[in-house]
């Protein structure tokens, strides 16, 4: 028997997903008041129209993949070959997943620095001088953006539950200094005017 090609498998998965969504679409509860308004559109109608289109297209895709299978499918050499081919993106996704899981514990600033440093070291290499560069870049870029969002735009970024005092100290001091500098700049023209007058 001929092996299923990639497109056929994707089409079958799509059809299965459409089936699940179709099934769930009939669970969409029609509210009581809608029965009083006959002109009101059923909340499940639009999704079912889309799903019908999707089923139709998936069937055409399936037929296409069976009748004229793609000629030049890359041979990746099993699961190992597939992993080697997509190693970098997989590692990046894992790193990003770890970053999201760490946010509640380390806060956006520290978790972000670790993430950027980890990603750069993973993708760029682990030589000593590179590690120094990566550490500097991660501290400057993440710190800079954290400063813009937390201090200048006053966005409440996720705080660290492990080191709450350290982050509080940073917020108070760094944002405080920036506010003071901003105040000086704001007051400077008035001060000059007063002196001149």
């Amino acid at each position, binding site marked *: 028997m001929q092996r299923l090609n990639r497109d056929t498998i994707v089409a079958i998965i799509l059809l299965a997903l459409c089936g699940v969504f179709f099934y769930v679409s009939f669970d969409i509860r029609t509210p009581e008041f*809608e029965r009083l308004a006959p002109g009101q559109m059923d909340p499940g109608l639009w999704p079912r129209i889309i799903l019908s289109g999707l089923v139709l297209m998936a069937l055409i895709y399936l037929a296409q993949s069976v009748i004229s299978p793609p000629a030049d499918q890359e041979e990746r050499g099993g699961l190992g070959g597939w992993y080697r081919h997509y190693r970098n993106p997989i590692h990046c996704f894992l790193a990003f997943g770890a970053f999201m899981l760490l946010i509640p514990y380390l806060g956006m600033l520290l978790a*972000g620095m670790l993430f950027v440093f980890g990603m750069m070291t993973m993708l760029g290499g682990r030589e000593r001088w590179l590690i120094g560069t990566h550490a500097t870049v991660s501290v400057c870029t993440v710190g800079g953006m954290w400063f813009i969002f937390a201090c200048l735009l006053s966005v409440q970024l996720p705080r660290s539950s492990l080191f709450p005092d350290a982050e509080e100290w940073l917020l108070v001091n760094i944002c405080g200094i920036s506010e003071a500098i901003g105040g000086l700049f704001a007051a400077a023209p008035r001060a000059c005017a007063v002196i001149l007058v």
Partner: protein
Amino acid sequence: MIENILIAGAELWSVGTLLLMALGVVAGLIAGAIPGFTIAMAVVLVLPFTFGMSPVQGLGTMIGVYVGGLSGGLMSGILTGIPGTPSSVATTFDGFPLARGGKAGLALGVGVWASFFGGVIGAIVLVLVAPQLARIGQEFQPWDYFALMAFALTVTASLAGENMVKGLIAGLIGLLVATVGEDSVVGVPRFTFGVNSVQQGFAFLPVLVGLFAFSRLLADVRDSESAKGNLGAKSDASIRINHLVAATEVLKRWGNLVRSSLIGVFTGVLPAAGSSISNILAYDQARKYSKTPEKFGTGHLDGIVAPEAANNATAGGALIVMMALGIPGDIITAVMLGALLIHDVVPSPTFITEQPVIAYAIFIAFFMANFMMLALQSVTLRGFVRVTQVKMYMLASVILFYCALGVFALNNVEFDIWTLFWFGVLGFVMSALGFPIVPVILGVVLGGIAENALAQVIALSDDPTHFVTRPWSLFFIVLGLFSSFFHVYQRQRGRKRWTLVFIPAMCICLSVPVAMMDGIVRPVLAALLFVGGLYLLYQRHREGWVVMTEDQGEAPTIAEGGP
């Protein structure tokens, strides 16, 4: 009108807004200068920063990025031979040989000034045409509006590239994503699978950034070699531009400049045909009209003027469609429509009438952005050359973090970062399987609007014949049908016999709804369309319905990578 222009001008002419716009232009120039970074990605990444701004400030900043990005691509294209964006592919044909011949300053100068003049011509057409088109928008009823949305969705077929079915599947997936969460008509939760965080639906920005930027960045670092590569290795940072000479050289070629700009505007108006097509079309036309076509490809200035004027003018065309009809002309205007939604401004054909201040602010911002681009590109050229030397993996790592920070800032909800992550995975998997991403985004943007239009249609009448008896609705249905097969037509034009009938049939079919419209001008236009279609058919008949053989059809064209 003058009152609205003054209010819009006052909002834009504040120091804060001007600074933000200048920053936007710089961000666009940097993104455009980096090969592999698209303008759409830059606009998407800037979007989170615009939440805290007023709609005028936010849109002004994004227009700055758009215009900056269109021009930024020429720098890496000319200096390294690698186009920064697809919109500057044709610029490299002559720009790079000229730079290699020791005239990098002249090549850059001509490119910058051609971009500027192209952008200004695009802006003039935008100001003149958009309000006229918007008047037509006021005639629209829900049936027409739904047909318009359906037509906009057929664009997904054109965006699909090689495989139309995959493009349509991607578009439908986008529409399905937009249905998740409470429905906008009666507020019933849909497809939440018991997850409370999904109750409100997926926020537009994390979906967009995840699908587009996240997946794209990971694709850029897929193999270690490209991840560690310098973006623009051997650029000379000591280049000087003589602006007077460059501007004079561009103005000497005014015929090419105006023609290319108009090609750009027209391409921008066509759904899904953006600056990546217009620059090649304009280059092709410039070569055809040139008295010295053999010089093209060797460092001819006409070969820089044409693509650069066209790609900047395309923005004007795309904005015409966005503002007059409320539908995106390309991916960047799709993002801008999303930005309008975030600021509670619903894009529609009545946008210019209902939101005149924002509309006129867009006009003015587009003009101003072109002037800013000219000034900033000249001043900061050396810095941009250095940016192209940053390693890809460093940029990818830092930008991924910025993506997470930006989407979190939208609602201060950590779930949005998870949305970013999952849609990043989805986007990457879809790309790896050969599905285009842009149709998904188009589906997400238009899904809610199309559903609301359908709900209005159903509430008003249960008679579906309105779709074919109302002229505008029929017009968009006919246009949508032809638009679905337009890319197949483009691929097989002149090689298959049916393609000889395609355009005449479209003219004749479109003449029917146009003839049904009120007034005198439109029925006259319908008659012209009808006669034009018949004339084309007669011409084909006289030529004996000749099609090219396979060998003739395979002759290399500019669009396929020439000259």
